């Protein structure tokens, strides 16, 4: 299977062909994929070199002139390193951009902690007005990229698209806004975010729980969570491929007027100082199906374990 990142340059190259307002801004990473597009659109495929403050600042400058910039590099260097540029050059200047990251929480474990960004979504949560897409499959990534960049979208929208090597076996028809109901039960709600859906489905096999699938996590689909809890009870487990607990506050807010419990699962805060494989890091953070089942049933208790 190809990866989400394999889809990125072809999809955005087509958007460059279709819409003269689209420009791509790169900082070396990912430039090879845009070689053909750069020949067709030399003024709209921009590589600023290894300069991430300029990457975001120049993207924002393009937006000030009415362009729709697509700004791309690894998550660590897109959101964390130039965070003040994200906050001020986009937010405070009141202009939009589509930030597309690769490498996610631990796509390249052998690369070590410098190339891991489990905190990216939590950091964006400190800012106003960001839409955050976390596709779980290359097909979904393509849909969400088009949704973020493409015609019909508000040019002032600030959108983050988080691409990862981790992916589910099959894509689902995501719409860039709402959670999907994948499984229905009565003993609790599990929200699976992006590439963790397969693990969550395996972990909850045979359990009496509702599984929601979230690929657009900001704005958080509070209405979908509320609806799900009406039938399944207000015991909620969030399973996120980035920092554990990132969406706990959003889930609490969605259920503020009903008694509820929320467990936030995801990538641990502690630095592992390990290399190895993605699978090893998934297990180390307790995000494999076996660990998830243990933690989900431990939290939801007898109501979930009751056989459907």
């Amino acid at each position: 299977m190809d990866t989400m990142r394999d889809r990125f340059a072809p999809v955005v190259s087509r958007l460059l062909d279709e819409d003269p307002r689209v420009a791509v801004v790169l900082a070396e990473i990912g430039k090879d994929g845009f070689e053909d597009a750069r020949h067709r659109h030399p003024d709209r495929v921009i590589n600023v070199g290894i300069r991430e403050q300029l990457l975001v600042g120049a993207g924002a400058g393009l937006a000030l002139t009415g362009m729709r910039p697509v700004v791309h590099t690894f998550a660590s260097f897109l959101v964390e390193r130039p965070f003040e540029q994200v906050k001020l050059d986009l937010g405070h200047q009141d202009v939009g951009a589509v930030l597309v990251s690769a490498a996610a929480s631990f796509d390249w474990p052998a690369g070590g902690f410098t190339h891991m960004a489990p905190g990216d979504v939590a950091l964006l949560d400190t800012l106003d007005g960001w839409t955050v897409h976390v596709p779980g499959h290359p097909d979904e990534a393509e849909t969400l990229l088009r949704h973020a960049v493409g015609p019909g979208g508000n040019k002032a929208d600030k959108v983050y698209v988080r691409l990862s090597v981790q992916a589910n076996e099959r894509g689902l028809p995501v719409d860039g806004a709402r959670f999907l109901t994948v499984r229905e039960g009565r003993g609790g709600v599990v929200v699976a975010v992006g590439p963790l859906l397969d693990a969550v489905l395996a972990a909850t096999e045979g359990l009496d729980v509702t599984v929601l699938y979230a690929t657009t996590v900001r704005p958080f689909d509070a209405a979908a969570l509320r609806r799900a809890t009406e039938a399944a009870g207000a015991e909620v487990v969030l399973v996120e491929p980035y920092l554990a607990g990132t969406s706990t506050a959003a889930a609490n807010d969605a259920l503020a007027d009903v008694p509820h419990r929320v467990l936030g699962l995801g990538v641990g805060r502690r630095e592992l100082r390990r290399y190895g494989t993605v699978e090893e890091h998934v297990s180390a953070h307790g995000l494999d199906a076996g660990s998830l089942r243990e933690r989900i049933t431990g939290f939801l208790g007898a109501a979930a374990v009751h056989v459907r």
Partner: protein
Amino acid sequence: MSITAEHGYTHAGTHERYGYTDLSRLMGMMTGDEKHGPAATSTLDVLWVLYDRVLRVGPERAEDPERDRFLLSKGHGPMAYYAVLAAKGFLPVEWLPEFGSYDSPLGHHPDRVLVPGAEIGSGSLGHGLPLAVGTALGLRAQGLHAPSVWVLIGDAELDEGSNHEAIAYAGPAGLDRLHTVVVDNASASHALPGGIAARFEAAGWSAETVDGRDHEALYAAFTAPHPGRPRVVVARVEPKNA
């Protein structure tokens, strides 16, 4: 008659005409004093020459894609900037006395969302030049080759590394619509080794250093041709701590 008036860009009728000699009074509406030290006025002459004679801008052209873009990166001490914007009719003179108050659009750092004529909000140093690079790229990508992009920074602001990312990129990229004015009041604790102009020249910029109080010298430096290269003008004024 000013150059802007000759070009027909002066806002017609709705405000009285102000000249350079009025700026001190306009600043006084914000500071409560008609006398201002060199620090408060370090940018004043640069701003006046640009807005009076160089920039193709005006209150009626706020949305005109063909207008020049002036980005004030050094947002500290914006009284001179507001005074010039008021003198040129971008904002009402009546706004000036409320400078910095809760209901005033005029803060101690400008906000583009609140201040008519302000192309960017600034305050945090080192953001304007990268934004100006992107603005120049955006205009070029849309085939808008006439507008110039200007950014004003301070000499101490050049401490911020983000500027050096932009300087090093803009030269090789040949962004010849991009202009930087560095107002040099020797306020950096550690002056840029080799000098400011040399730093830009090393990156392929056209550079000139002039007296930042001499209007004719500023005008000549601002309007000198620089084909294929971005341009920096270092405007030297009285040292901040002299």
